[in-house]
């Protein structure tokens, strides 16, 4: 399915980072933010955000509650938990390590 164009596992990391940076957001807000940052370089089927949100919530890395959106609609707001922050730090570090390793590998290629 098209959502797989997001590298596997990175959607979770992007969601956590977004919530960490911007505070509580609803699903639409998260999806828009990720698209903004990607600047069109990512073909995200926005719907795929919801299974990811559920997954993160099951792991208690994020929590959610009902609130009111900017246009006064009932919306579900997600926020990052303490456990989520820890996970984000660990995942970000591991991501950075992986990226720099891959980069070194690619740069050393003659």
């Amino acid at each position, binding site marked *: 399915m098209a959502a797989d164009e997001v590298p596997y596992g990175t959607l979770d990391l992007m969601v956590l980072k977004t919530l960490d940076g911007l505070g509580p957001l*609803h699903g639409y807000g998260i999806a828009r933010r990720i698209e903004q940052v990607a600047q069109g370089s990512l073909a995200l089927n926005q719907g795929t955000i919801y*299974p990811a949100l559920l997954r993160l919530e099951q792991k208690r890395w994020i929590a959610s509650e009902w609130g009111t959106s900017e246009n006064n609609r009932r*919306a579900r707001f997600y926020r990052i938990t303490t456990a989520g922050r820890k996970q984000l730090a660990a995942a970000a570090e591991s991501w950075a390590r992986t990226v720099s390793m891959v980069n070194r590998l690619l740069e050393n290629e003659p």
Partner: protein
Amino acid sequence: MSPRVLLSRLLDPLFRARRDRRLNDEVRLHLDLLAEEFEAKGLSPEEARSAARRAFGGVDQVAMRYRDQRGLPLVESIAQDARFAGRSLTRDRGFAITTVLVLALGIGVNNMMFTILYTHTLRSLPVAGADRVVFVSTRDERNTDRGLSWLEFDETRQAVGGTALAAFATGPAALADADRAPERVERSHVTGQLFDVLRIAPIIGRVITVEDDRPGAPPVAVVSESIWKASFGGDRSVLGHDVSIDGSPATIVGVIADRSGFPASSNVWQPLASSKSLDRDDRAARVLRVVGRVREDQRMDEAMAEVRTVGDRLSADHPDASRGIHTRVVTINERFLGRASDPAWAAFMAVGFLVLLIAAANAAHLMIARGLQRAREVAIRASLGASRWRLFRQLLLESSLLAAVGGAIGLGFAVAGVRLFRQGIPAGILPYWMDYAIDARVLAALVGVSAITAVLAGTVPALQACRADVNDTLRNGGARVTDSRVGRRWSGALLVVELALGVVMLANVAFSMRVSSASVPSDAALTTDTVLTGLVSLPADRYPSPQSRLAFQDAVKEQLARLPGVRGVAMASALPVFPVSERKILAEGQERGDAISVRQVAIGEEYFDVLGLGAERGRLFTSEDGVPGSDSVLVNAQLAARLFPDGNPVGGRIALVPPQETAALEWRTVVGVAPIIRQRPQAEPEPIVYMPLRLSPPAAAAILVAGDLPAAQIAPAAREALRRIDPAVPLYDVAALGEAVARAEWNARLSHSLLLALTLIAVGLAAAGLFAVINRMVAGRRREFGVRLALGASASDVARLVVGNAAKYVAYGAVAGIAAAIAWDAAFGVSARSQTTLPGARLADPIVLLAIAGVLAAVALLASLAPVRMALGVDPLAVLRQD
């Protein structure tokens, strides 16, 4: 999966509705916000809405993945699939019923045959610790299952250290006491260790011990529970009761439970020391059966080898009495149950799996045909986000459901089949440990076989159905689906084999029915209920000489003839249809090597008269035959034809060839040709020689009493008359002649029924297979039929096309089957071996084969009815519109 996620998933069913609502709300809001955004960019409301949907991706796919993430998707979706499969199968009832029945037949036959195999070979004997009990016997070139002589047993027992050995010998005896008529029992003389070796404990009293098994010990007996209940009222006072066994006194000291005794046929046990017939000095009198229990500290293989070595050394030490005698040691289970790996059992079970395989193949055809019809449904589900795996699983689940229902019904078939099979075997034939119970292991086999069948029958159809091209199928509305060409060719080949098999089996049944039902004139005489029959067996110690046995016979005839309503009394060595011994015979002018094997019956002079039959030529026996100085014999027409092909047998000379090479031939004169009587159930009449009974009166004889009354009314008086002659000789197996003959025929009848049932199943499966293949053909060519109808083909054209296709398979199958029948007959000589004298009766009989072809044609017509209806039901307009 972390425990926390698992918990969330496990709890999901509680919150399912709420979570579904929550996702709905979130998605709606998301879409609204997206649409507003697009509208703000200047799109019309409708355009904005569809752009929002595109950006969001498939709502249903998201919902599905969301659900997968939420609960336990495997369990949940399987439950959902099962509900769906159940619904779709009830909608397509014809398909479901046919498939279930086909599978039930295959699984049922398989399970029935497994139950029988299991009972006969795989169960253990009901002996405690049976795996450490061995059976010792001897073999030579002529006989692979001889016993041991007393000397051999005694010396082996003393020389062997690793195994405790015990011996027994079983034979008929008469049990009587002061106030009861004698009763025929099976008595085993046993050594003092037998009950210990087999760990058989008494219900009351005690068993026979080493102290009892000494010369001069007080005579004792142990009886079975059923004798205790039937003859002694189940009262404890039986202990210490004095009885007479074959005329010798004995005291009953114990009772052992039915279904625990050994050997199974015994119901009275006495010490071997009290046996009057055991020859303790003849090393070649091998009448003892020997069992042993290997000591706990010994290895089985070493202990068995020790017994074998000791036995073979004894044979080597006594070359005169033991030339060529080898000792054989096997476990008791192997001796009495046989091995499942025995070729006969392997063939038996192979048939069971062949039937299952054919049934599974037929079910697969039916499912493929159905898959072709519902290609559209599958394509729609695929386009709605169902993964290939999910579709495959769904289809496999459907076949599993069918196999499960088929297995349940198959269990019913198996239970009924085993019960019918069991009823075909008269009581007392099988040892008590063969009771064909369907236990946990048989059920486990059933479940396993059902599961394998589901996979066998379901995999290919499921793969084929979910491999179809989604786009193509949707575009043409499911009307144009492609069937696999290779698969079709294979299924056609399988069908031809099924049909050919049906032809061969039908030809075989027709042949054996013709041969066995061909009547001989005596058949009517043998079904009568006014001839009473019974057996007597004279104890050797009371009737040691031919003269004493002759005196007994004369007394029997005299006493019985006096009874009211009795017209005639005869004795013989065996009843009609019952097995008799064989004898080698040659005619004058033939060499000793030309001797032929024939059946030999010794009869009293009244025998044929009692049966109401007269001589075909010459005369029958009189009281002058069989006395010293007379050399008369009778032959039947079959023997006359063999020995005197072109002359009158009456007055001809024939010689009986003694078993010893060096002994002189015994020449006798044929005085008449006897009427034809079978001595083998439902078989062609064979050559028989009749000897006068007086010549050598046998210890075991049959008595026939012809009366004006039904046999049952004469029976009590006849028993009483025999008791007056000798209380130690009971009349047993008392029955009307017709009844006795029917009983003797059980084996042949049972194998006939089994053959007939298997044939019907084979033909039924072939018919189902034909239906399935034609159905599949029509399902795969629906578009073609639509076009044909649109172009003006009439209903009868289409019908002819479908029926023609069926006829093609039947023609191939019939030709292959007829060829196979002819080849089989030629290769194995089925017709020749049956020695049939019926004109034109052979396996590959043209008229029978033509009739079978006719039956198959009718089957083909029937099997193509539903497919023709399906072909005609294609809507030409719908087909054309889709192109």
